[in-house]
């Protein structure tokens, strides 16, 4: 960490935070270029990201970073001006440069040394791209020009036009600060919109319609005020203005018409498609592009101001200052012509609408999360006391409590959302892994990401990085075939690894999909037998064989490569994911690839659990691990050995475990007839039955770590606080089963059932 006393330290720290964001923007831009969907703006974004990093680095005297960023920037500038072509090869170098820029930033932040050889390698690639005409331009001057960046929250990346001025705020805070760029219509709709007076009378408002349109795409609006009479003849209840709107959007005409749905019979409306107006300056007297959004507000403000003074009080009363004056009374003719021309700033596509954000210390959020946890517990305690006091359910107290409960839950959800982060940053890191891994094994692999806006708890994201890295490497190393094999199999030479995230029934599903050869089950089985992981004559189903990959000490790589294949890996991946309360499954189709599916809880702070009693202790069992509950009948229980029992569940036998005994709370009972058993699903799909005394409730509990106070307790995942203020342990049933003794008959011996 930085020295607290150093005033620069804080600025420095925020520079590095900002660098991370710039690097992310850089990655995004490069990805778009790589996908071949780049436009002029993309290269600008990329250029600006590098430029901003260079600027900040210059201010802090980070020489290495400046030198590299400068070179990178020069090449990007070449691309921007068209002297360098951004082909596949170039983009690949850009990606590497982006990685190195990231390395250098991190090295500078942690006072570390970046890999000099790699930098030189990429640096020379960049230099060669600049070619002979690499003007030794004024690096020194450039650097000294820069002001320290990195203090504003708004990165300015969203601003269109290269050096566009900062956009003034729109009058409507909900409206996106739309980037301005020169509007060239290529395709779109031309809409003529002439409102009737009745439109205003019914409380509709053209400005709102225009705003709706602006959200659909790029918009250019011209207002026709030619019908305006002079002020003396003006009837403030009449409609005089009409608009011609050019809209570029991906939406179909139906969607455009829908905007006018409510006013369709209150106006004269024509919508025609695909008119190609020439690039137009919005109005002769408005400033040339970049068209900024204050064009929309300034004239209105002035007109409505004049309106307030000139028009009748009736009309004025109906208006508030920011509303368009067209509601009841058109602007007086004295208003400047620009008032009638309304070039609405075209909005960027929905995805890059910048939202105002606040950076908050994670510690503060954690504290808030903790407090909310307390609130939830407290609320449970109050509920319990109210219930114990025997108050009627329709009493004021109970009703108030219900509302309180609802609020608590809402607060909890909102707080959890603060902690949630999009997986995008994680996925971006993975694209680097793919690049490095694929170049190392000489394969051409491309990472496709889907659902990177999916939000997961920050802690989950952090702890997902390692296992995911491993899985991605595995997919590149083992999953994707060599280029020759791919071509021979009739596949494109370039392999594709898809990384996707999404929400499914209250959990987050992350999938790593490769389009490789799939799992070679014969070989997997053979290796497993060689390594003694399974018996020689074992009959395994396909999915059982696939799951062998997760066994400790298993590796199929015939030779240990740099990347993977040291035989540690998938089992570590699996345990890392399990420790997050997640599950991982494999699905493989020979010839067409393998899908690894990780299912994760949304948050690590709360959990849905079943509250149970055993040996007069109250415990919580995570609901996700219980597949069913049953009451044991006499014939269900069969003795397996002198000390162990199994139970018959439909057509299979499941080991019977006494939870009270396994936790050391009591000796095995004489008989389990009539006991309640929880059927626990294990990782390999097998089940085990845990005997409990009674099931109390099913509820959300707040997870409290035990690690801080007592380290890892076998069979226990965490603790929680119940409504009575007592601590209940949250079981890790899978761990309990794995370490189980298995004794369910009160006999003395040491025979054990393998866990």
């Amino acid at each position: 960490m930085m020295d607290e006393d150093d005033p620069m330290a804080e600025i420095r720290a925020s520079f590095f935070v900002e660098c991370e964001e710039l690097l992310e923007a850089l990655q995004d831009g490069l990805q778009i270029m790589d996908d071949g969907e780049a436009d002029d703006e993309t290269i600008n974004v990329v250029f600006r990201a590098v430029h901003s990093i260079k600027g900040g680095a210059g201010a802090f005297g980070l020489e290495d970073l400046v030198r590299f960023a400068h070179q990178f920037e020069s090449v990007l500038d070449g691309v921007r001006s068209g002297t360098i072509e951004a082909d596949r090869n170039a983009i690949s170098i850009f990606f590497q440069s982006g990685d190195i820029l990231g390395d250098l930033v991190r090295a500078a932040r942690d006072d570390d040394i970046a890999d000099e050889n790699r930098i030189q390698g990429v640096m020379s690639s960049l230099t060669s791209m600049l070619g002979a005409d690499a003007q030794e331009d004024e690096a020194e001057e450039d650097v000294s020009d820069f002001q320290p960046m990195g203090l504003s929250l708004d990165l300015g990346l969203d601003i269109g036009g290269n050096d566009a001025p900062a956009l003034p705020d729109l009058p409507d805070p909900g409206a996106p600060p739309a980037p301005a760029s020169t509007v060239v219509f290529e395709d779109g709709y031309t809409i003529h919109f002439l409102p009737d007076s009745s439109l205003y009378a019914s409380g509709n408002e053209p400005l709102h319609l225009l705003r709706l349109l602006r959200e659909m795409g790029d918009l250019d609006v011209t207002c026709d005020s030619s019908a305006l009479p002079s002020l003396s003849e003006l009837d403030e209840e009449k409609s005089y203005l009409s608009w011609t709107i050019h809209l570029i959007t991906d939406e179909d005409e139906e969607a455009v018409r829908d905007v006018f749905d409510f006013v369709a019979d209150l106006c004269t409306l024509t919508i025609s498609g695909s008119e190609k107006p020439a690039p137009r300056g919005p109005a002769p007297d408005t400033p040339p592009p970049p068209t900024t959004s204050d064009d929309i507000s300034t004239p209105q403000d002035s007109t409505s101001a004049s309106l307030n003074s000139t028009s009748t009080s009736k009309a004025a009363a109906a208006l508030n200052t920011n509303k368009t004056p067209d509601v009841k009374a058109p602007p007086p003719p004295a208003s400047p012509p620009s008032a009638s021309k309304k070039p609405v700033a075209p909005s960027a596509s929905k995805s890059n609408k910048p939202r105002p954000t606040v950076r908050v210390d994670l510690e503060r959020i954690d504290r808030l999360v903790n407090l909310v946890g307390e609130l939830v517990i407290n609320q449970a305690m109050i509920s319990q006391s109210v219930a114990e006091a025997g108050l009627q359910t329709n009493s004021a107290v109970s009703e108030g409590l219900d509302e309180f409960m609802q609020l608590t839950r809402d607060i909890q959800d909102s707080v959890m959302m603060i902690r949630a982060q999009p997986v995008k940053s994680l996925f971006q890191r993975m694209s680097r892994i793919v690049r490095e891994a694929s170049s190392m094994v000489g394969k051409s692999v491309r990472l496709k990401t889907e659902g990177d806006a999916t939000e997961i708890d920050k802690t989950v994201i952090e702890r997902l990085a390692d296992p995911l890295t491993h899985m991605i490497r595995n997919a590149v190393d083992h999953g994707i075939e060599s280029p020759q094999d791919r071509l021979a199999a009739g596949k494109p030479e370039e392999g594709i690894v898809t990384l996707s995230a999404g929400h499914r029934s209250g959990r987050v599903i992350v999938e790593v999909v490769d389009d490789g050869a799939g799992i070679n089950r014969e070989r997997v089985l053979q290796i497993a037998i060689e390594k003694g992981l399974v018996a020689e004559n074992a009959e395994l189903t396909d999915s059982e064989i696939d799951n062998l990959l997760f066994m400790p000490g298993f590796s199929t790589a015939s030779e240990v490569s740099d990347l993977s294949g040291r035989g540690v890996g998938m089992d570590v991946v699996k345990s890392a994911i399990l420790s997050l309360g997640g599950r991982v499954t494999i699905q493989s189709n020979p010839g067409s690839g393998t899908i690894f599916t990780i299912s994760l809880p949304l948050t690590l702070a709360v959990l849905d659990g079943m509250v149970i009693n055993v040996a007069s202790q109250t415990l919580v069992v995570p609901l996700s691990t219980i597949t069913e509950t049953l009451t044991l009948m006499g014939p269900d229980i069969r003795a397996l050995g002198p000390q162990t029992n199994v139970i018959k569940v439909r057509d299979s036998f499941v080991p019977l475990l006494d939870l009270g005994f396994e936790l050391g709370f009591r000796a095995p009972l004489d008989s389990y007839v009539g006991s309640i058993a929880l059927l626990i699903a294990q990782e390999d799909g097998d089940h085990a039955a845990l005997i409990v005394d009674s099931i109390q409730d099913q509820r959300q509990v707040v997870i409290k770590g035990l690690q801080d106070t007592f380290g890892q307790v076998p069979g226990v995942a965490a603790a929680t606080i119940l409504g009575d203020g007592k601590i209940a342990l949250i079981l890790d049933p899978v761990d309990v089963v794995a370490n189980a003794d298995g004794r369910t008959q009160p006999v003395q011996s040491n025979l054990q059932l393998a866990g």
Partner: protein
Amino acid sequence: MSETQNQIDSTEIELLTFQVGGQEYAIDIMSVREIRGWSKATPLPHAPNFVRGVINLRGTVLTIVDLADRLGMGRTDTKERNVIIVVHTGIETVGLLVDAVSDILAVNKSELQPPPEMAADNEQAFVSALMIAGERMVRILALPAALPSENTEAA
């Protein structure tokens, strides 16, 4: 030893004395966070015997060490009168189950005597110093040694 240094006068320390299994012990008052009445602890499976379990201390999970059991004097038979001393060692916070809290003594460090080597009592590993208070002998508890984290790895 893990006394939090008394910042005013380093030669003088204040000790909280308490009764465990009929003996009088003391710890530096700077490591004491609070003293609270006994409430039933939730037992932890597979924990050493001297760990009585965990209790809810205003939302945090607090491990309770039965000090008498830890010092080899047998499990405390908990009654209403028993007291939990919540101590903080800089790394962790733990509750010590004791019989009763007696007194606060201000003593000069020079009054503390090193305990004699007595191999027969393994409890002496938990005593860092001895002192005389009136007619009584007070044992200064070596706090880190008595806490579970030191020994659970082995246990």
